[in-house]
């Protein structure tokens, strides 16, 4: 069936394109850093990229329902702060607390969107203030107490295993399962045609709230990852993740109107952004250029995508 094959290729165009881009970036990267493919490098880099990867997955989950989360950075910082503050009482408990808080913020956002008829963009913009304030209350000054053993194992490898990499793979596997459940299909259905889904008996509100809560879990994990990577919490560190998670999702081909997009592509896109940022540092340019690069990459990527897919959409 050549049609099916072509369809499959087209469906995975984003993944294939991003994969090729990553190969190019890795080649350039190894030119500057010959130790790139050693376990130590891989561990360090995956620890560094994990927060953005998970944040991108969270943003994508929301975007699939046709929403957007501008409070993502604040929630990420909040989860980080909660984890750092409660880590004294045992890491598992702290992780559960952080994830619960993050999921709850997502559920609140989702409820406001689903029941109050407020557009996601304005809800989450206002929520970014709210959660930002809560974070400052939880952790007014950067600090907290993440056990140094954990920090070391996470950043340097645990018995030769790159923990962050394991987390990302595990989350991807979980998503793959979620996607094949009724909830997963509902998520895509609500994003693709909300009214139609409702008329067909899909509980659209529940689906939306769950999607925001699920995104909260992803973002919470990102916050925990960032806390473990840096060894502390910081209320002001979350902001860039909002833009970058949107950038990654859009790069990955997740549609603003919902219903279209793949998580694997979001992961790859987050990797591309991370690698680009690191490469920039290698070239010896001032880190000040980092922001400019991010903005330009975002515009160029979307433009290329728009014009590459124009034939299909018109």
């Amino acid at each position: 069936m050549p049609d099916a094959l072509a369809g499959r290729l087209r469906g995975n165009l984003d993944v294939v394109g991003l994969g090729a881009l990553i190969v190019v970036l890795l080649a350039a990267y190894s030119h500057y850093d010959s130790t790139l493919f050693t376990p130590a490098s891989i561990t360090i880099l995956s620890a560094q990229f994990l927060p953005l990867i998970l944040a991108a997955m969270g943003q994508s989950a929301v975007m699939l329902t046709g929403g957007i989360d501008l409070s993502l950075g604040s929630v990420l910082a909040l989860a980080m702060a909660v984890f750092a503050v409660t880590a004294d009482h045992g890491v598992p408990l702290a992780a559960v607390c952080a994830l619960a808080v993050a999921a709850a913020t997502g559920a609140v956002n989702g409820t406001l969107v689903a029941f109050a008829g407020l557009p996601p963009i304005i809800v989450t913009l206002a929520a970014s203030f709210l959660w930002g304030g809560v974070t400052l209350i939880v952790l007014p000054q950067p600090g907290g107490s993440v056990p140094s053993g954990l920090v070391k194992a996470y950043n340097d490898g645990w018995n030769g295993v790159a923990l962050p990499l394991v987390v990302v793979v595990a989350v991807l596997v979980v998503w793959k399962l979620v996607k094949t459940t009724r909830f997963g299909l509902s998520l895509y259905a609500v994003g693709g045609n909300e009214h139609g889904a409702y008329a067909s008996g899909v509980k659209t509100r529940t689906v939306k709230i769950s999607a925001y809560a699920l995104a909260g879990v992803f973002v919470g994990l990102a916050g925990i990852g960032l806390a473990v990577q840096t060894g502390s919490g910081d209320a002001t560190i979350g902001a860039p993740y909002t833009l970058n998670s949107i950038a990654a999702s859009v790069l990955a081909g997740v549609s603003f109107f919902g219903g279209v997009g793949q998580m694997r592509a979001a992961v790859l896109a987050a990797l591309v952004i991370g690698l680009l940022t690191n490469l920039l540092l290698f070239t010896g340019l001032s880190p000040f250029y980092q922001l400019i690069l991010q903005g330009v990459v975002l515009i160029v990527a979307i433009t290329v995508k728009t014009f590459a897919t124009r034939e299909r959409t018109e």
Partner: protein
Amino acid sequence: MMTALPRTAGLRALRDHRAAWAFGVLLVTWAAAILFANGFDSVSSVRYLTQTASFLGIIAIGQTLVVMMSGIDLSVSSVVALSAVVCAQVSAGHGGAAGILVGLAVSLLVGLVNAVGVLWLRVPPMVMTLATGTIVAGSLLVYTNGSPKSAKIGLLDSLANDRVAGIPLAFVLWLAITAVAVWLLHASRVGRYVFALGTSQEASRASGVPLGVTTFIAYGACALLAGVAGLVLLGFTATSSLTMGNPYQLLSIASVVLGGTSILGGRGHVLGTVAGALLLTLLTALLTAWNLSEGVRQMTLGLLIIALLLAYARERRT
């Protein structure tokens, strides 16, 4: 079939006049502030509020133009800093007038770039303006090497701090800008195009609405006004900083929406934005007066905005 219309018409009138709601909420809040908080009953406090609200208000007027055509401009925060920083830098070498002109020119340029991206590159407005905002922020870092200058420019100083007949000049400037915006949006041809675009892009195209001109005017005006606000802020504080625009990103959008304009476009009134900006400035001042910690203040403001949105800014379900 239209026998029972009065009630429908009444409801619709209320919804269409959410801008009036905004003024109502403002008056109630102001009255409450005078009754229950200290220091809100003096002429000087009114003066101070109108003066500080002007910075936000000028930006929010521009934001209204963009939101009305169902766009959004998240680059205003960076543009505020851009015009102030560039003006301070240029005026150090070439004098205040040159600084002001260059500051406004680069602001306008950002707006035109936004329009190009939205129009020709077909980047969604939110992403385009987030991206240009980031680029501008990065460029400012590079341009100033991380340490922007301060500048005392006579014209800006008096614009921000002087009064005519007891009324702050900044407020007068804001009202003048509002008057022009009211004409542009509610009485001119361009306004009709903006509302049409905000309601339906496809229908507008098939009706011969000039998408290009309208988009350039809206984004250009929005960035230009953010630039003006940046200059007034520079006059107010006599220093420029890279983060001076940050609060205005959320607050300008909140002003527009609390002023009764639909975030989805096509519905609302510029005057509502004036009430929205005054309301938010008042709330911020109240929270500051109560001596709350930064965190509690932010949280409360967020909660208040959400509560107000729930009260009267809901979108109709379709």
